[in-house]
């Protein structure tokens, strides 16, 4: 019996990959990424005393912007545009502004505030109570859409392959594009409804503020859905069974949950694993949602995540459709004489 199991296991490469790859992934994540203490706080120092203030700062405050003529208004703008997590304004009325949407960054900044000049007033922007719900609910939208798009969609398509109905569709007059659109549209619609439900629940039940543009919210949701549905379809094209699809979906989901900045701040991760986060769509969706919900971020401030998500959508969804099309395509015309 043991020998049989080992033989089966040896031939089930995906299970072996999961059994070996998952512990390694967990080790990396929890060893290098799962840190709440942030040691790199992007800081802007503004005002006439900026040079002196910079010299006094704790090493954790990484100065990314220094301007001797900057004002409090500039400081707010820098935080709203996510150019910095902390902004120190020097001068007659010195003040420290902290971005409350970066929960652990903000907490870390406040703990290290003793290095700041005494008597400086602090203000937490966008999430003054440092509410966890305010930060997590916008991120959860991304996670739930990722789950629906990746797991549910891939299972739905693989089920068709197992039943032989996918090949049957290739025989019908339905064009491949009809099949692809028909197969994905319901999941797209359900995911959109889910997105609305979670948003409303967040606002009505958890009092999460929605300060930004509804239009930007919809645009990001739309583009992100193409990415996650693309992942789902892509997984289905390389999976022979629903079990295989779930295995692959776990491999796609887990890094996104742990390395996207949704739970652990990207800035707290070791540089060796942080770069992975920059290749994950959830990273940019979380940034965008927190910006839209809490900071009323402008289009310009969200342009970078928007461009990156759009490129991901084109690449992932395009690849998925290309592969899926092969499954449902009839014989090419030149091969068939009718």
């Amino acid at each position, binding site marked *: 019996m043991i020998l049989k199991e080992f033989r089966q296991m040896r031939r089930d490469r995906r299970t072996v990959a999961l059994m070996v790859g998952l512990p390694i992934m967990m080790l990396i994540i929890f060893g290098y990424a799962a840190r709440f203490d942030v040691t790199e706080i992007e800081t802007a120092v503004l005002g006439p005393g900026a040079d002196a203030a910079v010299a006094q700062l704790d090493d954790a405050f990484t100065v990314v912007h220094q301007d001797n003529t900057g004002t409090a208004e500039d400081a707010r703008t820098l935080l709203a545009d996510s150019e910095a997590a902390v902004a120190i304004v020097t001068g007659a009325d010195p003040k420290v502004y902290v971005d409350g949407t970066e929960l652990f960054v903000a907490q870390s900044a406040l703990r290290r505030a003793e290095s700041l000049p005494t008597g400086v007033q602090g203000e937490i922007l966008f999430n003054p109570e440092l509410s966890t719900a305010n930060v997590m609910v916008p991120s959860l939208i991304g996670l739930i859409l990722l789950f629906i798009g990746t797991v549910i969609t891939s299972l739905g398509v693989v089920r068709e392959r*197992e*039943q*032989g*109905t996918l*090949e*049957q*569709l*290739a*025989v*019908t*007059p*339905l064009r491949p594009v009809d099949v692809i659109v028909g197969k994905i549209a319901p999941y797209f619609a359900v995911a959109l409804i889910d997105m609305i439900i979670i948003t409303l629940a967040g606002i009505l039940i958890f009092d999460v503020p929605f300060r930004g543009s509804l239009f930007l919210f919809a645009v990001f949701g739309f583009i992100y859905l193409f990415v996650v549905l693309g992942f789902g379809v892509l997984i289905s094209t390389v999976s022979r069974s629903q079990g295989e699809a779930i295995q692959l979906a776990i491999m796609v989901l887990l890094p996104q949950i742990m390395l996207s900045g949704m739970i652990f701040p990207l800035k707290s991760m070791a540089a060796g694993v942080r770069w992975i986060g920059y290749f994950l769509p959830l990273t940019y969706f979380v940034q965008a949602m927190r910006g839209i919900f809490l900071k009323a971020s402008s289009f310009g401030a969200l342009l970078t995540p928007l461009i990156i998500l759009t490129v991901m959508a084109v690449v992932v969804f395009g690849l998925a459709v290309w592969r899926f099309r*092969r499954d449902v*395509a*009839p*014989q*090419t015309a030149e*091969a*068939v*004489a*009718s």
Partner: protein
Amino acid sequence: MNWGAKDLTVVFGSKVALSSVDVDCQPGEILAVVGGDGAGKSTLLKALAGIDVPHDGTLTLPDSGLTGYVPAEGGIYRDLTIDEHLDFVSTAYRLTDWQARASDLLARTDLADFGDRLAGKLSGGQRRKLGAAMALLPRPELLVLDEVTTGVDPVSRMGLWRLIAGAAAEGAAVVFATSYLDEAERAGTVLLLHEGHVLASGSPTAVAAAMPGAVTESDRPGAPVRSWRRGRRWRHWDPDGVRTDERVSLEDAAIVAELVAELVAGGSPS
């Protein structure tokens, strides 16, 4: 017009699934594709159904929407009802005035009383009949059925056969793969496949008549490589034997053809 394939070769990686296969499917005729596991039956039927398989050779197939296909897996959505299946097929094939045809097919398959039942709740035989009814709904010019009677009880098999014969009577060219040689004997033409090669082709009678040597029957096994069991008795093939009984069954002919192929491949021809 006849449908089929000329010099069809399909290769998956290093495995030759089909090698220079010729198939001619005539309207109103039934062609049975027979062969053991891995013979290439399903690959041939997929190609004939118009599913994109990498191939060389020529396929002559009806226009889109004029082929009905039942895959070996059944092609049934377990979470749709019978009526919903037919409704989906009518939409996919853009059929109009299909309800009467659907009712007729359901009546002929004894499924008329189960229209609102989920396919997942049907018996194996009922699911196969539903698959056949779906394939027949658009009045196909070419009907391709992959192992549609496998695992089905004898009564349901008879029902399926009536359906297949009815499709041929309506003018469809029918191609079906089967492991049951008694079924293949009902077809007008039999194509015997072995490891992607055509071993024999023609009417069941012609295929049986072309068998080399003779087959005898006894109560005891003979040389293992040339003997097989049927019921309580043993059949023996003698490649140099002279046939005295002209009523050679298709089963004998198919087994002998495969034995010859294996002997030739093994380097020790009879």
